[in-house]
């Protein structure tokens, strides 16, 4: 190796993130050269067959129970901060964050258009729904004051050490089982080294060479055709903090950033596909399906807008039928299913356009911008990091037992896709209805809970999709009507206690007033009048008041029957049971 060795001192200094003078640079270079000559004595060490390890000791790492606890001495942390803004650490803006886009000259000769196919790989980051963070006991909940959920560990104080959260491991295994991965009985946490203000240790603890899950697949349906998207791996890692840009809005051109580490070290799993996705629509369906799987396992809340599910896409194109992968670009910042589809479509078109113009596609990272519906250059390959991954010596390898894996395997229920198929086949729901159930595991759960109490799936689906859902404006919004309440409501409809028409208004009022359906029925007096005596009295009074019309009816104007019914319903404010009204009225006027 020594003959091929080249010390790129500028790169090393850049990785170390400090400045040196030219003279110092020469001295460092010479010092490192000397040192490496000496260090290369290990070339001759007879150890090539040995397994590398970051410790000479054999020990299983212990795991921490998932109990959240607020660290109570935050003032001690803030006291040391060079500059604070409230309880946030203040930093100047990141300059030159976006690379400079090369000008594309439209008047270049257009090459013959080849037929290209698209190759897409996706990396999905999912927040795990643990109570405490991945490596410390701070709570994971959102919405607290900046840095209220932090401690020495997740703010990267000197001397701290990570201790792994047991529940996050279980959740990662559940995910792996649900997407058909091989669960690795040994996995290793590694440090990914780079500088950024939101990364308190200047490294992220992740998994690299030995992730917790390998392989696997997710089955999706696109336009009625099934496809299995192959997975590469699932690994565990910690999230970074958040930077709130103070001053001008947006990520460009702001004056300063306030750093909040509440999100720092919140557990994530990253699910990485093989380059096995062919269209933007497939990509979207894959993410929808993956979300459904994770949400139905109860390990992720699946909120794309809030960032608890984040998706990056690696996109390349190649002449149809060829095997070699083209140069890929990575697209970030797609915050909705629609954005995923549009960003990929945009990027594929951008790449095709470059090809047409005979221009090279550069390996680079690009950001999707929702407002302009375009991708922008974020950093080029030259700016890409050398992350210097290595096994984290603070964490011993994670070893899993068969017992643990088997016990978790039993907890993985029916997949969302199987559920969808069941709903169509066994419950006669439409394709559209059953797909909605699949996409929204919350709905499926609701449906099944209701079904336990009220055994008419078609009725549940009708009322749920046509009425309840019409009040839910945002995708995946939570709603307050319990399955129990809904089932009682449906029973009252069936027993004619309330009419369908009133039922609809009950649902509207329940949403307007955030009350349960039963409460509305009780308090608003919307129950149907089925008491025959009461209805009979009402009919009598109406017939009395309209004796002329009764005479006309009796003389053959049978259409007037409808008039009487209408009057009765009007008087009863719609609460009279129409069937009872009919029966009694017929008895009275024949």
């Amino acid at each position, binding site marked *: 190796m020594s003959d091929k060795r080249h010390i790129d001192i500028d790169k090393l200094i850049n990785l170390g993130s400090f400045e040196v003078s030219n003279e110092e640079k020469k001295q460092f270079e010479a*010092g490192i050269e000397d*040192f490496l000559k000496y260090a290369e004595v290990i070339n001759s060490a007879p150890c090539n067959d040995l397994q590398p390890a970051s410790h000479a000791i054999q020990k299983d790492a*212990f795991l921490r129970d998932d109990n959240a606890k607020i660290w109570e001495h935050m003032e001690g942390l803030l006291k040391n901060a060079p500059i604070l803004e409230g309880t946030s650490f203040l*930093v100047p803006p990141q300059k030159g964050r976006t690379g400079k886009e090369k000008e594309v000259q439209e008047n270049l000769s257009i090459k013959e258009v080849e037929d290209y196919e698209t190759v897409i790989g996706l990396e999905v980051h999912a927040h795990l729904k643990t109570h405490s963070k991945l490596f410390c006991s701070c709570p994971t909940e959102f919405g607290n004051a900046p840095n209220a959920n932090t401690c*020495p560990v997740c703010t990267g104080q000197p001397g701290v050490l990570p201790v792994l959260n047991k529940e996050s491991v279980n959740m990662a295994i559940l995910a792996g089982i649900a997407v058909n991965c091989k669960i690795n009985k040994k996995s290793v946490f590694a440090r990914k080294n780079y500088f950024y203000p939101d990364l308190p240790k200047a*490294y992220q603890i992740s998994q690299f060479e030995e992730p917790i899950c390998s392989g696997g697949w997710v089955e999706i349906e696109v336009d009625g055709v099934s496809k299995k998207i192959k997975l590469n791996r699932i690994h565990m890692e910690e999230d970074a903090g958040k930077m709130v840009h103070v001053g001008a809005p947006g990520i460009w051109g702001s004056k300063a950033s306030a750093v909040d580490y509440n999100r720092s070290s919140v557990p994530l799993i990253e699910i990485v596909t093989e380059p096995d996705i062919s269209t933007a629509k497939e990509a979207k369906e894959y993410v929808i399906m993956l979300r459904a799987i994770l949400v139905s396992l109860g390990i992720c809340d699946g909120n794309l807008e809030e960032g608890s599910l984040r998706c990056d896409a690696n996109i390349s194109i190649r002449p149809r039928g060829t095997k070699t992968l083209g140069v890929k670009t990575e697209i970030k910042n797609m915050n909705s299913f629609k954005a995923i589809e549009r960003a990929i479509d945009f990027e594929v078109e951008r790449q095709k356009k470059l090809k047409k113009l005979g221009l090279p596609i550069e390996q680079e990272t690009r950001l999707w911008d929702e407002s302009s519906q375009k991708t922008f250059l974020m950093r080029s390959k030259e700016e890409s990091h050398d992350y210097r991954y*290595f096994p984290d010596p603070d964490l011993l390898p994670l070893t899993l037992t068969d017992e643990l894996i088997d016990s978790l395997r039993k907890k993985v229920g029916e997949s969302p896709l199987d559920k969808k198929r069941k709903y169509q086949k066994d419950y006669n729901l439409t394709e559209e209805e059953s797909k909605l159930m699949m996409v929204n595991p919350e709905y499926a759960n609701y449906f099944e809970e209701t079904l336990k109490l009220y055994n008419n799936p078609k009725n549940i689906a009708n009322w749920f999709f046509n009425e309840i859902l019409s009040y839910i404006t945002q995708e995946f919004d939570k709603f307050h009507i319990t399955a129990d309440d809904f089932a009682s409501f449906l029973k009252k409809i069936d027993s004619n206690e309330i009419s369908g028409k009133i039922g609809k208004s009950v649902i509207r009022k329940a949403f307007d007033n955030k009350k349960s359906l039963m409460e509305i029925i009780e308090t608003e007096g919307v129950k149907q009048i089925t008491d025959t005596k009461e209805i009979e009295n009402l009919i009598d009074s109406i017939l009395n008041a309209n004796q002329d019309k009764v005479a006309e009816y009796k003389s053959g104007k049978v259409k007037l029957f409808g008039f009487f019914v209408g009057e009765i319903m009007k008087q009863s404010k719609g609460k009279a049971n129409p069937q009872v009204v009919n029966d009694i009225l017929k008895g009275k006027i024949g």
Partner: protein
Amino acid sequence: MTEKLTVKKIIEGYNKKEFSVSEISGKYYKKIEEEDKKYNSFITLNSSFLKESEDSQAKYQANTNNLLEGVPIGVKDNILVKDILCTCASKILSNFVSPYNATVIDRLKSVGVNFIGKTNMDEFAMGSTTENSFYGATKNPVNVDYVPGGSSGGSASCVAAGFVPAALGSDTGGSVRQPASFCGIVGYKPSYGLLSRYGLVAYGSSLDQIGTLTNTCEDAAILVKYMKGVDRNDSTSSNINPLNIDDFKQIDLKNKKIGIIRETIGENTDKRISQLILETTKKFQKYGATVEEVTIPALEYSVSIYYIIAPAEASSNLARYDGIRYGLRTTKKDVDAKTIFTETRKDGFGEEVKKRILIGNFVLSSGYYDAYYKKAQKARILLSEQFRESFAKYDFLITPTSPVLPFKIGEGVNNPLALYVADLCTIPANLSGLPAVSIPVGKVDGLPVGMQIMAKRFDDGLLLGVGEFIQKNITDGDK
């Protein structure tokens, strides 16, 4: 008060009311204030130390005293003591006030120990002379023209000068044992995992252990008794309880099998040092031990392995000093976030630290990872295997602690590689996670020489028991 009290004698004296905590603490504190100008052992003195000592004295009077109540000790300035500066002898942390206590500090506090101050060291524990300090070099109390060794030079110096009966240090490649050897005291590095590293500022995480600098092996055992044990904040800490720590006794040499590692008394070692080690071990036989030479062939790789792994881990461990959450921040105006990092780190770190960060980045960088870092990891396993095989035959292994006598101040500056190579004897214990202790065995040219004893992992109590026996029966008489 005699020049060098032991922890044991201090506790006995307190309990027998021979002297009070206030009296002892006052004398130590005054001595430091008057004499430490000569040695520069301390970076920061604990301003509430005398008050804490009075509180301890009150506890003796009320009979509510703890087991080590009122014992004053020094703490290396890379171990966090809440509300006291923790600088790691670096400009970059020169204003950093510890927001929490290291686990060992919490545990010692809970048995009544008081912390007199934070001791000088090589910046971030990188060095073996305590000259690489933002606060100036520490000098060897035996002879102030010489370095005290390092990186725990301040801790060794303050014990050797009689400023404290004991001090905590940290040992990544010999940083407790080598300064103990240079200053003529006892330096003990526990088995990896016996003491929690939580609150020890990391240098090489897979190698770092907190250790003790004391006058006797028994004092080391007393301190470690109250610091050891699994810590839920350190995944690498262990719940194994070594024999002979909780009820410490001297352990005689009868029927002990002892190996002297041949590679450490060869041509690279000062002949007079080898001579002293061989003379000492010869006396073991009189007490019923068998003594043989043993070879550990992979030892020749140990310095290379160490100087690949330690900088690699350090380059990552020291990345967090970026001027955002604590410590130094550049005062330059009109900077962006990246310049905050680069200017702060340029101003804040010394040359040796920067050099090791660069070496670490090199051996981890793409294209070189397998050839350097991964290879070193494998060679580390090879070395550890050879030690395991040796310990199947021997109870203890012996080496000089340092192959050379203490350096003159300034001597090593221009020959960093020579300093690295001088770590040959101490590095293997860190690479293999083994316990090791350096005890003084005499002097050459008026400068102290230490002998290192190594034992199987978690044989810490036996190691200190035998060390105590050797000190009491063999080496003390030679002084």
